[in-house]
């Protein structure tokens, strides 16, 4: 049988293997998210599409049928238009989607958060958005040239109040 000295030696050996394994898996193995010559474009968009229908004045008869507390003179459909978004970088489509409004009655907001890895350097960005079923084509368009350093994040956001796409 093994004597105590040997036994403690073997224990130390086992503990060393154990902590080597723990240390290694805990912070010894790296994971590369971006190559040294890559940057990131993040599309972070939140927007409510325009109402689908027009508001309409209720007739007197219609108003009379409604319970007294709900007799609003105008009837507005709650549903909002889906939003079409298209992002192109140097003729390459990064994102192209029709996004449905959230909520059961389709009256909510649209939220998008998407990250795209791109090579660093100059890029020609084309950003297009359509937020109304009544429009025939994209009613917000912005074109911009950006130059990205490695590891930089180019945010593309949207704010209709300041005219549409915002680059940050």
């Amino acid at each position: 049988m093994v004597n105590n000295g040997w036994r403690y030696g073997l224990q130390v050996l086992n503990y060393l293997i154990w902590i080597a394994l723990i240390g290694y898996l805990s912070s010894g193995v790296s994971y590369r998210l971006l190559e040294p010559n890559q940057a990131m474009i993040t599309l972070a968009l939140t927007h409510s599409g325009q109402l689908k229908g027009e508001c309409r004045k209720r007739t007197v008869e219609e108003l009379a049928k409604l319970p007294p507390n709900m007799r609003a003179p105008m009837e507005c459909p709650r549903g909002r238009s889906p939003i079409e978004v298209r992002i192109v970088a140097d003729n390459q489509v990064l994102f192209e989607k029709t996004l449905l409004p959230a909520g059961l009655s389709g009256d909510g907001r649209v939220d998008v958060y998407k990250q795209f890895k791109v090579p660093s350097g100059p890029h020609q960005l084309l950003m297009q958005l359509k937020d109304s079923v009544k429009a025939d084509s994209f009613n917000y368009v912005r074109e911009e040239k950006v130059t990205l350093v490695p590891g930089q994040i180019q945010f593309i956001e949207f704010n209709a109040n300041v005219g549409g796409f915002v680059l940050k």
Partner: protein
Amino acid sequence: MQYQHQLLASDTYQNTVGDHLLKLLHKPINHAYLYLDKWFNLAFGTHWNPLYHLGSLAIFLFWVVLVSGLYLFVFFNTSILGAYHSVEFLTHEQWYLGGVMRSLHRYASDAAIATVLLHILREFSLDRYRATRWFSWITGVPTLWIVILLGISGYWLVWDQLAQYIAISSSQLMDALTIFSSAMTRNFLPENLSDRFFTLLAFLHLLGLPVMLIFALWIHVKRLTKVEIVVPRGLAIGCFLALLVLSLVYPAVSHPQADLTKAPMVLNLDWFYLAGFPLLDYWAPLTTWFLMIGLTLLLMIVPWLPPKRIPASAIVQLSHCNGCGQCFDDCPFDAISMQARTDGSPRWKREAVVVPHLCIGCGICVGSCPYSNPFRRSEVHLTTGVDMPEYPVHEVRTATDKALASITGPVKMLVFSCSHGVDVSDLNDPGVGSIRLVCTGMLPPAFVEYALKKGADGVFVSGCRSGDCFYRFGNRWMAQRLHGERVPHLHARVERDRVHVFGAAETDKEAFLREIAAFRERLQKIRQPSSEHLSKQEEVNHG
């Protein structure tokens, strides 16, 4: 021909396709553990073998995490702007204490999850999770999730680039569920960064999840008795020192501070807790959700893939129960309770009651009962206080009689084995008879004396390897009873030289045969004392 008795009832794999497939899956892992166990038994001894204490080792590591965490909390700044610097202060300015505490906190958490994974794999491969044991398994699953979430939220609190990566990836995952009215990712746009989420996370990590973990662990072991909460001291000291050495040699450090306008390029992930995140870089969040939920559900139903057949549960015979409570004390699965007498007996106050759905059919209670005494010939049919319907103690006595009658040769040995240790059915040794019990814990000590009185030269009891038992305590209780340390005792008048206890797993056949041979030699010496021994004896007699 020697007699070999195999009890009809089987608690191991059935002859069904499902069980055959499962066995194919279990065996390689099981054998790997058996070999590792052997190596660890050599280094640590059976008492300190870490693989025999994985559950309590994980609990010990949580203690280290808790104490080091409390220290970190004293210096930690729970605001998103102050967090990073407070951790940097601990790591660098106060490396000798705060830094060590931080490293201990991280490495003990890593060791804990690694230990838990080994624990799951072990219970699985040893088939200790099906039948009535489903409860421990199922309750383990949410416990595991709590531990994982604790780890992830901990990395979040450092608010370095790794935290930034985790925060954004987790938010994308949450946003895919669209149950929150506002998108979680919006919290991590540079202009929106606020303390809101950070405080929630800090609360979860510092209080919410730890409290949930304690509660979950309490439930996890609720159907077991005498749960080992405290790991053997030698193992605790060894583990702690090892983590301390790792902390000093390879201290845990942060990545650069989070900057939401810059993308992290290379991260040193902690693969113990964060291994799932890279998946999110390749798969859509919904795919990841399906995978996570699918795996969790699969893990939850594993105890029924396929269901395990277990022997019928123990039955109490009130006429033979004096309410001593020994079975209650010995049942490893909390299936017996002691209640007020229901038969109006004027002599006894209490009686044993078995809860059938908790009983796993191990028979350990039969070995505890003072009425399991084969010498009681007043009854033609041997009845005991608590018995197994599929292999009653009467049958064990009949088998013992038959086995004893069948053994031939100069040295007669009777082996009591169990269905989870070494297989003795192919011994082919005319001098050895064998009786296979479900668990050696079922062996009432009086049977050993009985066998020796009825003609056996020696009794050899072979259960699971010492330190570990399929039924948790079977081999331990048996050995303690035979050594007179636990009731019912093996009678003091029994010559201890003629009784041998040896734990042997199914891979220990050779060691088992060597042990049998050595025991035979010993018995031979007792039977035919050497001339030297004889002359000494004569001297004594004549002197």
